[in-house]
């Protein structure tokens, strides 16, 4: 029974390593192909060609790309993420604080959006066809269709510019009290909740509605079960697999996809760090960020699969 789950985890870990290698390889060469050169960007427009050539030599930028890639991989095996090209700091130190910030934002958003989305999805399925259901459906489709920068900009316009309730920028360092914290996180969290909830609401509603039409739910009805019992006891446990997967997919967006939100609110997260790194062609930093995004994604999906298996007695 347990060996099924164990097998899956081991298999997933294997796939994760391979996926990670492919992603890293692709990111490395995609970045190498970008026009522009790390040395000349670092030295600025006034640099002499000799200085650029000297820096390139010093940073081993003249070595073949594959060699640099392998060198970085080798370092990774020893737990060394490399040294940033741009400011000569260890990548691990650069990422550390930023990752924590992104995790905080993701965590708060998860705590708010997942219960909200599940409640809306399940209630919409229970009251299928009602005005409430239609309102939820229309709203969630509407929110999917509006790009997040639009939501973010509108939020800034409303709360920061007109109402002046919240600061337009979210500088974490200024947080001294709980009210400060709420003021800082309110707008990014609201924006992200908008973005990721819509998908979860729709998937939850669809999954619950599908199980509601199964014979065992009809059987529960014919046993005299109430509507909430039919949904919570009979439909929901069997809809858990698809719901958990939808949640995992939505949450994975919080790891790597928050770049727009982080940029608009000037929130010092890891996605923003990666974009800055692309601007300076800072390969070790880009690689490390990509690896973290990829890992986060694989972790979430694997966790979702394990939950789905545990909830199904046939697979357990």
């Amino acid at each position, binding site marked *: 029974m347990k060996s099924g789950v164990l097998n899956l985890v081991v298999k997933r870990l294997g796939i994760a390593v391979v996926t990670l290698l492919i992603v890293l390889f692709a990111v490395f060469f995609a970045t190498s192909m970008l026009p522009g050169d790390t040395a000349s960007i670092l030295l600025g427009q006034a640099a002499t060609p000799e200085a650029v050539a000297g820096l390139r030599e010093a940073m081993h930028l003249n070595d073949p790309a594959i060699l640099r890639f392998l060198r970085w991989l080798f370092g990774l095996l020893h737990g060394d993420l490399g040294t940033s090209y741009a400011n000569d700091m260890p990548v691990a130190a650069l990422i550390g604080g930023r990752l924590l910030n992104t995790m905080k934002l993701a965590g708060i958003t998860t705590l708010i959006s997942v219960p909200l989305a599940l409640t809306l999805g399940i209630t919409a399925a229970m009251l299928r066809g009602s005005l409430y259901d239609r309102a939820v459906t229309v709203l969630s489709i509407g929110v999917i269709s509006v790009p997040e920068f639009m939501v973010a900009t509108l939020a800034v316009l409303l709360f920061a510019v007109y109402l002046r309730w919240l600061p337009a920028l979210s500088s974490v360092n200024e947080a001294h009290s709980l009210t400060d914290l709420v003021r800082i996180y309110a707008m990014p969290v609201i924006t992200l909740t908008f973005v990721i909830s819509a998908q979860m609401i729709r998937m939850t509603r669809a999954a619950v509605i599908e199980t509601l039409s199964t*014979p*065992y739910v009809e059987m529960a009805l014919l046993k*005299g079960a*109430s509507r909430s019992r039919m949904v919570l006891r009979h439909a929901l*446990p069997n809809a858990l697999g698809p719901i958990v997967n939808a949640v995992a997919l939505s949450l994975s967006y919080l790891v790597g996809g928050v770049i727009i939100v982080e940029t608009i609110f000037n929130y010092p997260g890891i996605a923003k760090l990666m974009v800055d790194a692309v601007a300076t062609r800072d390969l070790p930093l880009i690689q490390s960020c990509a690896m973290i995004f990829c890992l986060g994604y694989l972790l979430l999906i694997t966790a979702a699969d394990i939950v789905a298996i545990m909830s199904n*007695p046939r697979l357990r």
Partner: protein
Amino acid sequence: MTNLVEVRNLKIEATTDAGRVVEIIRGVSLDIPDGEIVALIGESGSGKTTLALSLMGHARPGCRITGGEINVNGMDMAALSEKERAKLRGTDIAYVPQSAAASFNPASTIMEQVIEVTRIHRLMPPAQARKRAVELFKALSLPDPDGIGARYPHQVSGGQLQRLAAAMALIGDPKLVIFDEPTTALDVTTQIDVLKAFKSVMRAGGIAGVYVSHDLAVVAQIADRIVVLKGGEVQETGTTAEILSAAKQPYTRELLAAFEPKRRQAHAGAEAAANQLLRIDNVTAGYGAMRDDGLPLIRAVDSVSLIVEKGRNLGVIGESGCGKSTLARVIAGIHPAAAGDITFDGKQLQRAARKRSQDQLREMQIVFQYADTALNPAKPVEDIIARPLAFYHGLDRQARSKRVDELLDMVRLPKALRYRHPSELSGGQKQRVNFARALAADPKLIICDEITSALDTVVASAVIELLKELQRELGLSYIFISHDLSVVEAICDEIMVMYDGQRVEQITPDKVKAATHPYSKLLFSSVPKLDPTWLDGLVRDPELVSQYGHR
């Protein structure tokens, strides 16, 4: 109020996908006294399940009770609110579903679901409910009554689940139990145990019942009275004996006649032309990983040999999971055999279909059980039938069109149907199109895999008659795979009995009563007869049952 159930002039409407409103129950009246079991019988679409469910005040999505009264135990189910109905469901009226396998929640244990009624209606404390459930398990002769409740639905067999569903219905001490085709999905050998269990429990408790079925022979065993339904109207009502021996309505007689189809007359010279068309020797096939000896881990077909002669038919019969459908797929090459030889029309065939020549493929056609899934729903009938004409014969458009008309004519379908899509045809029509497509290839052998199982008795017997006629006209041979003995008897010259992947016996239809292998004996004796005393008088060798009736 004298009767437990009094239905008066009930009308139920359904809204179709296209938005059309159809009356599916048209003014039905029905009485059920206390303790009586009434059977609702009729073909699919006759409204029997809709009527039965309406007794619980339930109409499936898309259906609506539009008129009449449904008095059960003095309450009009049609007039009650949903909350009031819910109070009666499970306590006064209980339901045993058609497919218990689908009606048990896969994510929860059996015991939890069996006693759920007592939780919902707060009838008794859970510990007492569990004790009562175990008593019911014993009464329904379920194996391991103390432990079976802890299992999940996928861990017990279909026959056991069906009895567990009955326990689930009986736990609330209902006055009326509705059985919705509860044995249709079971093998005959299993069906008997389930029927016996139902009958004894219902008798012991003096519980009234509604038994929905399309199978007259099953109904004859358990019902006191029979109501024949057709097109949402009551055709005829009478005691079981009256209906079976003195049916008044032509439709009832048709149902009775369909139950005993005419035997096929072995046509003259059949023996003389003893030409082997198909011969398979020691064929083994299965699923799972290959073992060292080149055989698969799970052998669904285990060294089976058979011979089909030109113009003669072979029936293959056995319970579900005995390997008969795999055998069909092996012969057709869809599932290549792991060992053994297949010789067709004097030439040895490759095991895999894709290695066979186009002519070899053309001469052997297979027709599948579910026409619904075998016909492409996006294509009109003419395209479906014309496809093999272009593929095998390379006919041009005009010739194809002419041939499609001929083929539709052969399977007794009007030419106008050629423009329709499969979803616009009835079940019987779809199966005829399915068959016409096989005929289009001009085959010598047609493998029919349970082609009548999804059809109503009357429709199925018409399809069988058609098959016989086509055989006379075209000199075909059939391999006829079925779990239904009466169908196989009607059309086949030889019957092969399969059990657990092996051929246990081969006999002719007239010698069915003199079967020698113990499994064939058990199987043949398990087929219900139209005689109401059959089940009570049936004596089965307990050793045989424990050896083979493991489901």
